[in-house]
């Protein structure tokens, strides 16, 4: 059974229509990458899936029930979200923040139980963040911080993990580490993972399915090798480029006007 079912979903901000008549399903334990140009509604879709925004029309079902039928607390047991990273105002430590994922489960006096601590310790171990658990969030690198936010999402103990551009500010090694970690969570903990990303080459290596959001109703969802085809990418993103294959991995390299190969390509 599909754990996420989106049917004829439409959404607009005031007058600007962002999503129109979007339908897709995500199987339990699937790794889905969502790509598309800026403004195509990727983050909006993530906010709709996590219940922060309400659809204008259409339905979003998580585990068989409409998102709007969940209470905030109940939805937080199903869906965890990792947003684009930021440094919080106050100097919370890593472990303090990861513990906050357990807030809905706290007892009457507002403190975590032993079981909560074990879940948090597992999440820290899984994300390789134990060694700096006592440091402040502002004192660790961007890559480390991103892993900590993923640890917090894991500590929520949900079946679905939504991530908004988890690798956008990271260097190559850290990008790969984040995707390795997500893949590990998918395999070991049977998580359903939905990643919004601009890095289609990397996402294509890891995801089982890809959803390409273009303008209007230009939506494609299929296996990544079919969705991230040269023709579709050039059309949706409005760029030209090289598409190729190295070993078994496909890639797309956009070409700018001043690239040395731009003329050859156009002629």
């Amino acid at each position, binding site marked *: 059974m599909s754990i996420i079912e989106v049917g004829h979903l439409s959404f607009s901000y005031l007058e600007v229509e962002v999503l129109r008549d979007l339908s897709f399903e995500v199987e339990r334990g699937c790794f889905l990458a969502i790509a598309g140009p800026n403004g195509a509604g990727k983050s909006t879709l993530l*906010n709709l899936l*996590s*219940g*922060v925004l309400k659809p204008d029309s259409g339905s979003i079902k998580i585990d068989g029930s409409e998102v709007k039928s969940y*209470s*905030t*607390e*109940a*939805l*937080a*047991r199903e*869906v*965890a*979200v990792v*947003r684009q990273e*930021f*440094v*919080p*105002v*106050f*100097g*919370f*430590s890593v*472990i*303090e*923040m990861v*513990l*906050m*994922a357990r*807030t*809905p489960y*706290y007892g009457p*006096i*507002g*403190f975590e139980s032993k079981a909560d*601590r074990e879940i948090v310790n597992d999440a820290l171990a899984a994300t390789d963040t134990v060694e700096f*658990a*006592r440091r*402040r*969030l*502002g*004192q660790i690198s961007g890559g480390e911080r991103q892993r900590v936010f993923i640890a*917090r999402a894991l500590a*929520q103990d949900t079946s679905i993990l939504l991530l908004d551009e988890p690798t956008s500010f990271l260097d190559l090694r850290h990008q790969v580490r984040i995707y390795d970690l997500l893949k590990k969570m998918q395999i070991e903990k049977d998580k359903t993972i939905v990643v919004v990303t601009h890095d289609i080459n990397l996402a294509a290596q890891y995801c089982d399915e890809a959803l390409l959001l273009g303008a209007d109703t230009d939506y494609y969802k299929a296996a990544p090798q079919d969705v991230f085809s040269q023709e579709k990418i050039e059309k949706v993103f409005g760029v030209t480029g090289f598409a190729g294959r190295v070993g078994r991995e496909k890639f797309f390299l956009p070409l700018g006007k001043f690239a040395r190969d731009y003329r050859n390509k156009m002629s």
Partner: protein
Amino acid sequence: MPVTVTPKKLLLKIAIGFILLLAVMMLCALVGTQKISLARVFAGSGDNIDYTIFIRVRLARAVLAAIVGAALACSGVVFQGLLRNPLADPYILGISSGAGLGAIVAVISGFSWTLWGRSPIAVFAFAGALGTVWLVWLIGRLAGRSNVTGLLLAGVVVNAFFSAMIMFLTSVAKSDQVFSTIFWLMGNMTEEDFLVLWLSGGCVIVGIITLFYISPQLNVISFGEGDARSMGVNTSAVQTVAFAVAAAITAVAVSLSGLVGFVGLVVPHGVRLVFGPDHRQLLPLSAIVGAIFLVAADTLARIVVAPAQLPVGVVTAIVGGPFFLVLLIKHTRKVGWSGK
């Protein structure tokens, strides 16, 4: 893990803090222009001047200062957390100007009744404070946007408007009226009778307990509303309760003592720098530290220029400013501020 707050350690810290507070109150009640001895105080009530001065006058005033200090410090903690702004204080959303306007209206209209032992100034200031918060909340809601920006903007606008009204009224008022208004605006402790202390103390304690009850949610909300919601926190309910309670205890404090500045800004900062940002700990410890701070400041205000008295608001600003600066420099080196 020693870095996080546990109930046991928190209880211990609260107990120690409470004992410290009681000790400071006793000490401060012994100090003053009229020398008194503890031995004679405990000789009994009856016709005992030492007893009357110690209990009825000085201790009552110390209790009042403690109530006001605790309320302002807690309210500061909540506003800083909700607005995600370490520069926020209890007055940021215009409570001060609303209360000030209420006070000056009361002074000018020259009422002379009392309500539960409170003067018209106190009653009008209380009403003005709550009315302003309600107005700001309403405008913030209408303005939409992100909740926080809307509220801050509404607070700035209402603050500016009411301040202009205060200036207008002071410019047309008689000079003795102006003087008593300005004195009130600076923040003052006076000797209150026990009914007032019980009532306001009860309100503030209930308020602080309510805030403590939602303090885990305040932690999560300080990471932003979106994050808080996806972690299962009903943000609008928590925000509404927190704003309402923080505003209410601030209004109580303001109606007791006028606009005592600095406590609500400095105490939460100081406690956060020393003990960390976890609201479950920050809130009760700020209450105690705020109380101690204001009791001590008010004692200074009583004795520095004795037999005359300074407004306590002057003392909190003069003492609190440099004290806070030292704390800031010492601790930012060690632990980092927002972490940068």
